[in-house]
C-alpha cells in the first residue's frame, strides 16, 4: 500500500488498528509525507529542519536501497536547479529502523522499519515518491523500482521474512 502525503491523516488515524492489522499480515506500506497524527506503527511526528542555505537541503544516500537503485542524490536535491523538493525535515526513526537517506546535517529522511510490526514500512519525509515520473533524470527510476521492490518485499514477507 502506497500512502500519499496529501492523505487525510485524521481519517487514517481513525483506521490505525486496520493499518496495523494489514502490516501484521506481512504486508508492505510506503508512506511519503509529514506525519502529524498517530496511525503508522513506529511513526513519530515530523520535525521541520531549520534551513540557513539551500545546501541544507542536500540529500545524502547513506545506504543502498532497491527503490533508489540508479538514482543520483544530486538529482533528488535539485529540480531545475531549485533545491528543497525532496525533503525539508524528518521523522525521528523508531528503534531498529534502517536509515537510507539523510539531509546535509544527518537528519534521517528515508527509513525502513521491519521491527515495529511483522510487515515492512518504508517512510520518506517528503514529496510523494510516486511523483518522480520524469524519465529524463535519474529519479525517474524510483517509481518502477518502488513497484518492483514492493512486490519482492511482499513475497519475502509471505515466505516468512527470510532474505
Amino acid at each position, binding site marked *: 500500500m502506497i500512502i500519499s*502525503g*496529501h492523505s*487525510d*491523516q*485524521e*481519517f487514517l488515524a481513525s483506521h490505525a488498528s486496520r493499518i496495523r492489522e494489514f502490516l501484521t499480515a506481512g504486508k508492505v506500506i510506503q508512506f511519503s*509525507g*509529514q*506525519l*502529524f497524527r498517530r496511525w503508522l506503527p513506529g511513526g513519530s511526528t*515530523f520535525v*521541520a529542519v531549520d534551513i540557513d542555505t539551500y545546501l541544507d537541503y542536500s540529500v545524502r544516500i547513506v545506504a543502498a536501497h532497491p527503490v533508489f537503485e540508479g538514482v543520483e542524490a544530486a538529482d533528488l536535491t535539485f*529540480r*531545475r*536547479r*531549485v533545491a528543497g523538493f525532496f525533503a525539508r525535515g524528518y521523522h525521528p526513526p523508531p528503534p531498529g529502523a534502517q536509515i537510507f537517506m539523510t539531509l546535509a546535517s544527518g537528519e534521517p529522511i528515508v527509513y525502513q522499519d521491519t521491527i515495529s510490526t511483522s510487515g515492512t514500512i518504508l517512510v520518506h519525509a517528503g514529496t510523494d515518491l510516486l511523483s518522480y515520473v520524469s524519465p529524463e533524470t535519474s529519479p525517474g527510476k524510483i517509481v518502477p523500482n518502488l513497484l518492483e521492490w514492493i512486490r519482492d518485499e511482499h513475497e519475502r514477507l509471505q515466505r516468512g521474512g527470510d532474505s
Partner: protein
Amino acid sequence: MTRRIASLRGSAQQHRALNEPKYRSHITDQVYILDLSSTDLRQFDAVLVPCRTHFKKLAAASDQFAAYLENGGTVVSLGEQVQSWLPGVQWEFRPTNYWWWTEPNPDSGIRQALPDHSLFE
C-alpha cells in the same frame, strides 16, 4: 475589534502552518474539512481556505459559502480552484514555473493589481 477568524484544515502542511505560534494566535478556530458541512460559519467574521484543500469537499460546500457571504462573511481563498466553488471566481490555468528566478532577467509574471490594498502595507 478582534475578528473571529477560522481556517479550514485537512492536510499535514496545513496542520503544521496553522499551529506555528506566529499564525496560531490569529486563528480563532480550525475547522477540519470533513466537519465543514456541520459547522455554522456565521460565528466567524472570516474564513481562511488554505491551498491544497480537497476541491470536491469545497465544491460540495459552495451553497454554504454563498450563504455565508450573502450574510456579510469574508472568505480568503488560497490556491487553485479547478472546480468552481466561490461565487464570481473562475480559474485560468497557467503553466508551473518555480525556477523563473534562476533565469536571465527573471520575471515571475506576478503584478500587484491593487498596490494600495492593505495586504501590501
